[in-house]
């Protein structure tokens, strides 16, 4: 077989791959241990802690809470982020690049800063949403939306505006031209952005640390709180489920998009 990549590059690629996969391996194996404590390498393999996770009221509710929160965040972030990206791409005014940088700033700012700033604002403004689901939701949307702006912005950069103009002059209203021409052509960017928003929200820790309500904790906070007091492997088992969910959501959306493509072809 012909090798396309030079050998040193190939070795580096393999090393990088291992480096990225190692933490996942650690979490999965640690969650499958038979021992009493969180160790690596694990002492024997069993489903003991996985079953413990499934029976744990605390982890299970945290897992589903995170799932719901990520889903809700994804929906709002996708709509908001797409609108902002369209606005930035389509309007011509001075300070457009500045505005773009501003909208992306939550990505650059440390999560601790964003979380703390929102917490301070919620407390002092008397809105009554500090340490509530609503406040947490707002924080997650703020943190996830820039990812959508980024991916949708990238797909809009390669989208040819004359396609939309052609649709307009063929009789389509601005709304219909967007729905029938622009949207299908930037759908991949929107889809990628929404997956990002979901994953970012699901794994969010710093913002949640400041904003989550005591009785409804997202999974990362629940894991953190649990590990502070006892070093039990059910946290790692929870990690296994988190990883599975993220991988499943990526695979699922990929599959959904392919099915949509398939239907479109047959329809035409």
């Amino acid at each position, binding site marked *: 077989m012909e090798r396309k990549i030079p050998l040193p590059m190939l070795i580096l690629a393999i090393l990088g791959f291992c480096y990225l996969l190692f933490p996942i391996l650690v979490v999965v194996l640690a969650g499958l241990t038979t021992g009493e404590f969180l160790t690596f390498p694990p002492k024997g393999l069993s489903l003991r802690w996985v079953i413990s996770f499934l029976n744990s009221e605390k982890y299970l509710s945290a897992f589903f809470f995170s799932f719901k929160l990520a889903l809700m965040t994804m929906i709002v972030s996708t709509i908001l982020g797409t609108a902002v990206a369209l606005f930035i791409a389509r309007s011509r005014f001075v300070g457009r690049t500045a505005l773009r940088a501003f909208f992306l700033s939550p990505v650059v700012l440390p999560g601790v800063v964003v979380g703390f700033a929102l917490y301070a604002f919620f407390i002092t403004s008397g809105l009554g949403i500090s340490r509530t689901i609503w406040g947490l939701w707002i924080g997650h949307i703020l943190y996830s939306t820039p990812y959508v702006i980024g991916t949708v912005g990238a797909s809009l950069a390669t989208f040819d505006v004359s*396609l939309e103009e*052609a649709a307009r*002059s*063929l*009789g389509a209203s*601005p709304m219909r031209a967007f729905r029938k*021409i622009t949207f299908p052509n930037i759908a991949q960017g929107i889809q990628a952005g929404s997956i990002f928003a979901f994953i970012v929200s699901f794994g969010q820790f710093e913002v949640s640390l400041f904003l989550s309500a005591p009785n409804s904790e997202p999974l990362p906070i629940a894991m953190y709180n649990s590990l502070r007091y006892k070093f039990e492997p059910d946290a790692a088992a929870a990690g296994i489920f988190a990883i599975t969910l993220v991988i499943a959501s990526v695979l699922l959306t990929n599959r959904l998009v392919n099915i949509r493509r398939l239907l479109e072809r047959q329809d*035409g």
Partner: protein
Amino acid sequence: MVYVEFSTISKHFGTSVAVADLDLQIEQGEFFSLLGPSGCGKSTTLRMLAGFVKPTTGQIRVNGRNVTALPPEARDIGIVFQNYAIFPHMTVFDNIAFGLVERKLPRAEIKQKVDAALAEVGMTGFEDRYERELSGGQKQRVALARVLVIEPEILLLDEPLSALDKKMREEMKYWIKNIQKSVGITTIYVTHDQSEALTMSDRIAVMDQGRVLQIGTPVEIYEQPASRFIAEFIGESNLLDGTALDVHGAVCSIDIDGTTVTGRLTQNNAAIKGQAVTLLVRPEMIRLHSLDASEKPKLNGTVREIIYQGSVVRYRIQIGHQHVMVEVANRPDLARLDLDDDVEVYWNADSGVAIP
């Protein structure tokens, strides 16, 4: 009958003026070209007519209707873009059907019209193709079919040939013109290519820096350019500097380095006795072999360069301190000249045009 009318249209982008006080009247069924260098305002003019750009001042009327404030979808105008703008996520059939679907035509009628449009542009059998499976010329045909199928009031073509290779461009030039003629649709064609404009147009408006410099038929634009800029932009020109000696109606006698020649004055041009004028003579209008001994003007020159091009031979002739390019048909009865040969330069009195 005036079909499209621009009245004192101007467009400012911030402080820069893209189009200034434009007045244009385009006849029904006419093939009208906007010709000019890039940045001359021709595309902005087209986009204002299509409804993508709002004019700063003025009014646009189409078929008696004021369309200035109408959005593109309410204008009934078909536009073919430079890059064709074929919808990449739709088949050729769906692309052409798009405007009909927007007009909510019944399915059977759409099918019938699309089939007819495909046949008209010679693309039958390509219904299920996608944009990425088409060549440049095929995209061009689909783009034109997509527009013609809705039977718009006006057809706008924005540099539709510039993305094609030279051979295809030649072919499509005649093809588009023939389709336009057979459909009889009022067409406005934007181009920076003077040969496209000359070949295809009924009339041409030459634009520069947001203004129309001259409007006329291809013959008028080529043979009676109103200014030095137009003469240089359209075709190849020999421009000889001289002084106006005398003006008799439409004839102006000009002194060029001590030899008196005559130039025609067109209705666009005026010359004033004693002032500098430029004499335009096209390379193919000049002869180096007299057909008639009495022929005038006659200037003495020397061959400085010979460019052999097969069907024609081009000579650069020095006359005094000025130079002219001369294009001579490569015929056995016309003797071939050599470098540094002294020659006599003639042209028909009508072929010289005086430009102020």
